[in-house]
């Protein structure tokens, strides 16, 4: 149960994804999510989770058909805030998808839980403030006050599943938190410190965040159009993406279905600007991830991009890719066009999409696309998914504060695509 910094047998274990759980505006559960990605479905609706009637732009992405009581069986429902409930539900889906019961996890020596989030319990803090208006905070509803700490996304998850021998941590690195969590899980399992990891991200729409992004002028009027010349911003979303990570040997031993190998990741910080990304630093983060995975840029078949659809992000991200990929970036997909910007869940869901691309052999599209911005100059797989042999996919995440995190996923049965197979003309629309 304890880490001492000495990895098992002094070697690095290979780490694989054996289960995934999804809550998103285009479907709950990995099956519906896969179908929706393949179809290029867009989940935009009016935001109704809180009163948005006075907001100038109120389109966004909400999770539908979600009942916390369907997923939370052991904790009192009123102790669990909405983002923690999302994390629990998506994790239960991922475990079921992996063919793992809680009792099977209890038998394992040591686990690792990391839930990435931007807002954590802030939706309940919004509720606190709304409840006391116009008065002071002293009369706040205690049930909401108790749910504000971000730690609960991971600790409540462990308690709900009865997992005692786990390191449970919430990672609050804003819009890159999902990749941070998956990377932390990779390190914990790769080093032998943990036998399994439950990692990803969860966030729930809240007024604070919509007000902030609206004030910054970053919210799109109708749809999110990453890399499009006519893009006008992001659409906020909510959701969760949770992944089961195991070491490859034990996954094989139990006959688990493997979606992808987590080959490596990179983290760095621009240390440059509170909200604007920096090209050189973003590119350096990509190189760190490729180095950690032991591959070169030519090995990458697909990039699941950060792709917010905002003016600055898309240009900076595209430029960084041109730097890293020697002006020949691979095909990209921007799933935020379909599910919105789900904040701390965003890169976890991006990673799920990348793993599905590898497993099923298709590239999800960038929806709502009309005309690619020449300043971006990427093949963003506009509007229709394509069948393709995706062996290695990079999943990019950038966050406010210059917190960059890039993940590399690979096909479990071999790491690189033979050049002969990497011919776009042989790929078909699907």
């Amino acid at each position, binding site marked *: *149960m*304890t*880490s*001492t*910094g000495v990895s098992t047998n002094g070697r690095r274990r290979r780490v694989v994804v054996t289960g995934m759980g999804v809550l998103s505006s285009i479907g709950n559960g990995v099956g519906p999510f896969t179908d929706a990605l393949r179809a290029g479905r867009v989940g935009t609706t009016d935001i109704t989770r809180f009163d948005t009637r*006075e*907001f*100038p732009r109120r389109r966004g992405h909400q999770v539908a058909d979600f009942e916390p009581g369907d997923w939370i069986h052991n904790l009192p429902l009123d102790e669990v805030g909405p983002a923690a409930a999302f994390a629990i539900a998506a994790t239960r889906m991922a475990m079921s998808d992996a063919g793992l019961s809680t009792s099977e996890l209890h038998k394992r020596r040591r686990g690792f839980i990391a839930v990435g989030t931007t807002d*954590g319990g*802030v939706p309940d*803090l*919004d509720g*606190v*403030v*709304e409840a006391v*208006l*116009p008065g*002071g*905070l002293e009369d*706040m509803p*205690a049930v909401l*006050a108790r749910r*504000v700490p*971000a*730690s*609960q996304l*991971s*600790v*409540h998850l462990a*308690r709900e599943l009865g997992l*005692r*021998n*786990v*390191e*449970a*941590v919430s*990672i*609050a*690195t*804003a*819009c890159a938190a999902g990749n941070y969590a998956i990377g932390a899980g990779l390190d914990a399992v790769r*080093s032998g410190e943990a036998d399994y990891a439950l990692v990803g991200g969860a966030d729930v729409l809240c*007024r*604070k965040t919509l*007000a*902030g992004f609206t*004030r*910054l002028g970053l919210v799109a009027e109708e749809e999110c159009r990453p890399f499009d010349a006519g893009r006008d911003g992001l659409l906020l979303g909510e959701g969760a993406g949770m992944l089961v990570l195991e070491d490859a040997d034990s996954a094989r031993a139990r006959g688990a279905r493997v979606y992808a190998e987590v080959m490596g990741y990179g*983290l760095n*910080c*621009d*240390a440059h*600007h*509170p*909200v604007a990304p920096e090209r050189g630093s973003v590119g350096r983060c990509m190189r760190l991830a490729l180095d950690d995975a032991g591959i070169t840029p030519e090995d990458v078949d697909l990039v699941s991009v950060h792709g917010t659809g905002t003016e600055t992000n898309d240009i900076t991200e595209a430029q960084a890719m041109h730097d890293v990929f020697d002006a020949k970036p691979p095909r990209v997909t921007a799933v935020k066009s379909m599910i919105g910007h789900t904040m701390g869940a965003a890169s976890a869901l991006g990673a799920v999409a990348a793993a599905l691309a590898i497993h099923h052999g298709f590239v999800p599209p960038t929806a709502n696309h009309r005309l690619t911005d020449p300043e971006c100059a990427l093949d963003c797989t506009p509007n229709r998914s394509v069948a393709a042999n995706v062996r290695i996919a990079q999943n990019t995440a950038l*966050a*406010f*504060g*210059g*917190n960059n995190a890039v993940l590399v996923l690979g096909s479990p049965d071999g790491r690189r695509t033979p050049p002969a197979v990497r011919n776009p003309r042989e790929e078909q629309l699907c």
Partner: protein
Amino acid sequence: MLSTEAGAPRRPVITAWSAVSPFGLGRESFELGVSTGRTTAQRPDTGVWGVVADPVAHLVPDFEVRQVLGRAGTRGLDRATGLVVTAVRELLRHAPDIVDDSGLTTAVVLGTTAGSAQGYADVTRASLEGRRPQDVPPVALPNMAMNRAASASAIFHGLRGPNSTLAAGRVSGLLALEQGRRMLAQHRADRVVVGATEEYSQARSWLEHHRRRACDEAAALGEGSAVLLLERPDGIGAERTVLAEVLAVTSCVDADGDPVAVLRSCLSAVLDAAGASSADVWAAMPSSCGGTPETGEVRLLEDMFGTEAVSRPAIGSLIGDTSAAASVFQIAALLSTAQHAAVGDRGPDGDRLALVSAVDPDGAVACALLRLPSSGR
């Protein structure tokens, strides 16, 4: 007996630390405060803080962000962020070589409860009360993500390595130490600034008031930021010496409502991992919070390590409950105390083992075992 060989450390080492605390700015004021046992409790000025729940609180004296950090880049900076940016500035006085390099391999890992609850509440209130819902102060918007404190520390001090923010309640500091240790082990950084920050505010006051059980009320809130510099033992900067070796960190989750039982197994595991026995532990530092977990926690530590080991530093009563920052302050207090302890008050080889435990009311439990070498200053 401690089976691991004394001598050159093999595990990550703490080579510098600093703090912004209710004792004041910097390491020296913290050391002085701990050694004199001065309490810092004061009645919060309602003219500054508004109506708060706490009869007394432990506040960082005269801390106004723009006075302390200057006016450049600090407009609208929240208090939690200002506290840690200042703490890192103080830390780097003890590690000037980090400032001089490009910072590419210096990581930052910070613990938080929920960023600046006051900052979020203010923006939400402005949205609800403004003429339009987007009429929120733009200067507050960079604070609207919980990674603000860590990323602003990087921006102010040019630290371009991995930059992480984590939340684990009162266990945050120890899990930040663990994440930092793992970053070094996986060669994702060459050194890590590990720390945590917590601000006092009206919002935190009432949130904690409503979160606490009745028996917790005796523990006054505190605020501040404590930071440690964690390095590989073979890569220490020229001007620094080993203050502590991090032998092991463990954490668990209390899924059954019995935090003391979970802590007991956590403590056994951390000793096993270090090849140490409870008799080797020179000082044991329980989490500083009040209430039932702490009562059982202190008794458990006394049972395992003796009352003398547990009695050494009593920081909670001095600086209050600093929530996410608590366990980093515990380590800072240990380092401070060890440095001033009598030469005779040491183990047979001159090294001493020190243990830090942390229990969060939401169910997180963790502990860390440190070796404090006799050769450290």
